[in-house]
Each structure stands twice: as structure tokens, then as C-alpha cells.
């Protein structure tokens, strides 16, 4: 799965997610990706989020909607993403990751799978990582 979230200079937000699914899936299987609130969710009143990982688990808890809801309750994007993923793992046993932006441009990245590739650009810097707590910085 791949995904992106963005905020532009006018404060408008968007998210997108795209996937091929899981190897050996049954024809006709649809995962979390195209489901509003599961594979992606965006509301300028809170933020934008895109998910990746075990699709059935993500869909069961409407992961991205839950993340944005937690943010609207006052949590920052990092804490909201982490809490929603922990809840998902506790309730379903599945692992996943998500990227989140707040409507102030704050970044939240978390995954409870082994790895998740991510990158973001802000203020002329490209940040990226794939292992937990990694943050490599290079100039744009």
C-alpha cells in the first residue's frame, strides 16, 4: 500500500491511499484502502490520515477516522496515531501503520508492524525513515 497526506498554504488538506492488496487474496476481496475512514480520512477541522497494513484489521476499527476523531478530542497527531494503532492491535491482533497530519501541519507517524517506509517534506527538508524511531534528514 502507498499513501499520502498534505496541507497546502491555504490550510486545505487531502489524503490518498492506493494498493494492490495482499498476495493470494480471493478475487473480489476489498481491503481497507478504498473505505472512507478506514484506509484514509480527511477533515480540515481535524487533520488527514492514510493507513497501511492488515486491511481487515484496519477496516474493523475504521482506523483513520478514529485517528482524526482522537485529534478532534485534543490529542496531537503522533499520540492519536499511536493510540489508535494500539487499540487496533489489542482488538484485532493485526498490525499496521499510519501517517497523519494535523490541520496545523504537525506530523504523526507510527507503526506496530516491523517496518513502514515514510517521508515528508517541510521547510526545505526531506525527512524519511523505515525502522522505528528513524528520522534521516536531507535538504530538498
Amino acid at each position, binding site marked *: 500500500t*502507498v499513501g499520502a497526506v*498534505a496541507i497546502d498554504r491555504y490550510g486545505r488538506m487531502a489524503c490518498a491511499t492506493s494498493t494492490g492488496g495482499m498476495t493470494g487474496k480471493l478475487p473480489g*476481496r476489498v481491503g481497507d484502502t478504498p473505505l472512507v475512514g478506514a484506509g484514509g480520512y480527511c477533515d480540515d477541522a481535524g487533520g488527514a490520515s492514510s493507513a497501511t497494513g492488515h486491511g481487515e484489521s484496519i477496516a474493523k476499527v475504521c482506523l483513520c477516522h478514529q485517528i482524526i476523531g482522537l485529534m478532534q478530542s485534543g490529542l496531537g497527531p503522533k499520540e492519536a496515531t499511536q493510540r489508535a494503532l494500539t487499540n487496533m492491535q489489542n482488538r484485532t491482533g493485526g498490525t499496521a501503520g499510519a501517517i497523519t497530519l494535523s490541520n496545523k501541519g504537525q506530523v504523526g507517524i507510527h507503526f506496530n508492524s516491523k517496518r513502514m517506509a*515514510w517521508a515528508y517534506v517541510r521547510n526545505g527538508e526531506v525527512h524519511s525513515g523505515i525502522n522505528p524511531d528513524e528520522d534521516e534528514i536531507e535538504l530538498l
Partner: protein
Amino acid sequence: IDPVILVHGGAGDIPEWRVPLKLHGVRKAARAGYVSLSKDECSALDAVEAAVKVMEDDEAFNAGKGSVLTIKGTIEMDAIIMEGKNLKTGAVAGLSNVSNPVTVARLVMDSTPHIFLAGPGANSFAREKGVPFASDDELITDFARQALDDFIHGRGEATSELGQESKHG
């Protein structure tokens, strides 16, 4: 507000040899999205579409070219795009023979009263909107074929990037 683009290239048990490919791809996608954000008529929507298209075109990722295969060896892709001002949304599922499912999702959002098209209807919609046809040979990679073969023969760890629970759905 300072524009920001944030992307991911998938989560799971990504093997060591795929790590540089993934990192290169997500950095390239984030840069492409930021270029879109930096234009005069900047739009977060344009930026996320541009970034995702870069990764759909990169066979290091499970989307577009490089998508994993169903048990029958076919490709079925899903995508969503959403904006936060009016909650406008477009999504597709079970899409085949297009390079950029996210663009078809955007067309659903921009040119229909619906939010979600699936299967044959989504494929017909893409054709009607002039989305170029991409053959299976263009989209299916050797890595995806190997992953399906490993899955069928119970050797999933060699190529799977999903956790143990994911192999069983």
C-alpha cells in the same frame, strides 16, 4: 501555514534488500508532492495525487505497477482520495488494467455524484474517462509472480511483506 506533504510506502516485514528501494521511492514521491504544493495554484489534493502516482509507477511498491496478485494471478487494485474542506471523496475497488488507480478515484470524486465504484463498473468508467489501458504485462512484476508462487507453496517469508497474521487474512 507551511505546506507539508507526508507519504508512506507500506508497512510490514519489509526484507532488508527492499529497504533502499522503498526509501528512495518515498523520498521521490514526497518531493514530487511538494513540487505540486509549491506551485501558484497549489492544492493539497493535487499534491497527494502526484505523490501517490509516483509510487504507483514504482514497482518497489504494492500499488499500480508491482501490485500483488490474487490467487488466480490477476491484479485487482483499490484506491481512495479525499479532501477535507467539503469531505469530497472518490474511491475505486477491484480495478484492473490502469497504471494509476488514484487518478480514477479522483475522477469518481470530480465527475460523478458517487463516492465509490467497484469491479467492472469501475473499469468501464475508467475507459469512458479516457484513462489509458495498461496491460497485465505492464503491471505484473517478476517479484509479484514470485510472491504468489511462494504463497501457494507455503514459502511466504521469502517475499511477503506482511506479518504472519496477514498471510492468513
